[in-house]
């Protein structure tokens, strides 16, 4: 246990995390590619046609995992921000910043595929429904975080201010979700629920889970790849960086 704890903090140093991230991100990227290929094949060619929604429902295999990821990444950012405030490690702030663009991308993807799905099913690109609206607000929160951190020149201050914003946002996300939910709702109920089991065919569920895992692996790969860039930029005056670059 004692040894494990020492190892954790050793990895928290950017210098020792940089090579590990460099070895891990290609693995996760390859995993993401394989999982996405299998998931898309299952989803687009093997899964049966829905008797109500026809072929159009197949966008679910991108839409639902993207929505999950958009929320999970915000939670991950809040987690890293919390670690940063607790242990005052530099790497935590870098990880928070490295995750934000991927999270914003998935939020946008979720909104976009949702609009594409909504048009044939509901007959409209957009409705002011609870889940759509809260996803849009989540997108605003990501944009606010990115704008704040990029407006502050001092990287340490940007980390800490951004971390506080991520935590405040994470506290607000459930409040926003429920306030918008009570305000109006039209969206279909959750397709996969922990308590009730799933309302879908087995192959559909498998395809969706594979896609979710692919998006997980992609997010991890992107975060590690981006954090390497951030580490190099922040530590550019350190001797080890000049050795690595040279």
């Amino acid at each position, binding site marked *: 246990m004692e040894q494990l704890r020492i190892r954790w903090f050793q990895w928290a140093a950017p210098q020792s995390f940089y090579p590990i991230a460099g070895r891990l991100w290609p693995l996760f990227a390859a995993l993401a590619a394989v999982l996405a290929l299998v998931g898309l094949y299952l989803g687009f060619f093997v899964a049966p046609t829905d008797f109500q929604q026809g072929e159009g429902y197949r966008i679910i295999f991108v839409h639902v995992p993207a929505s999950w990821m958009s929320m999970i990444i915000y939670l991950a950012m809040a987690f890293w921000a919390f670690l940063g405030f607790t242990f005052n490690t530099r790497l935590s702030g870098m990880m928070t910043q490295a995750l934000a663009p991927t999270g914003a991308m998935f939020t946008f993807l979720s909104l976009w595929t949702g609009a594409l799905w909504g048009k044939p099913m509901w007959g409209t690109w957009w409705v002011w429904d609870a889940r759509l609206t809260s996803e849009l607000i989540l997108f*605003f929160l990501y944009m*606010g975080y990115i704008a*704040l951190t990029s*407006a502050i020149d001092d990287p340490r201050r940007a980390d*800490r*201010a951004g971390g*506080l*914003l991520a935590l405040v946002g994470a506290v607000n996300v459930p409040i*926003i979700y429920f*306030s918008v939910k009570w305000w109006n709702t039209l969206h279909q109920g959750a397709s996969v629920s922990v308590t009730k089991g799933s309302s879908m065919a087995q192959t559909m569920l498998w395809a969706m889970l594979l896609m979710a895992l692919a998006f997980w692996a992609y997010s991890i790969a992107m975060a590690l790849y981006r954090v390497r860039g951030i580490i190099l930029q922040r530590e550019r005056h350190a001797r080890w960086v000049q050795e690595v670059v040279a």
Partner: protein
Amino acid sequence: MSAFMAVLQRDLQLALRRKSEVLTAVFFFVVVATLFPLAIGPEPETLRKIAPGILWVGAMLASLLSLGRLFAPDYHDGSLEQMALSQAPLPVLVAAKVTAHWLLSGLPLTLLSPLLALQFGLDGPTMGVLLLSLLLGTPLLSFIGAVGAALTLGVRGGEVLLSLLVLPLYIPALVFGSGAVEAQQSGLGYSAHVSILMAMLLMAGFFGPWACAVALRIALE
């Protein structure tokens, strides 16, 4: 407590020496509320329907407008640093500053709202609910906005950034604030909305100054 009163008194006194700044936000509220009937048309039925939303959004924007001055003058002349160094806990001083901000921006807006509600043709009880929702909602806006104001202190393009950070966090207040008025209009009763607004105000009043103090210490580092 004495520190709280001292900061409150100081901020009120400073603001009253420069009345124009306080009045600007109030007039902004009036002007924005006047624009909508001109843009949408004078049908009383439509105006009555959109009034809660417009008055609430107007109050939100007006409160946002004065947030930039909450910490910035003290930050520039160094008195904020002295507050951070003083023996009194920083969250208490922040709470005093936020209270002063509300007394100077939120309260005048709230007191003015029945007059604007009259222009939109709201009846007496609905006007009362609007007054009540703004009375609970505007301090909530001040507490949430203060965190954003502290985060953007001394940052390039801080004012625009502030609105980007704060407006999404204002949404629950907007939903339940204007929802209370609409519920009253449609005869559903406003008590549920007002209770939730009150709960959110208590939460923000407790956690807001604390988060705000953390943000100020980051800015002052």
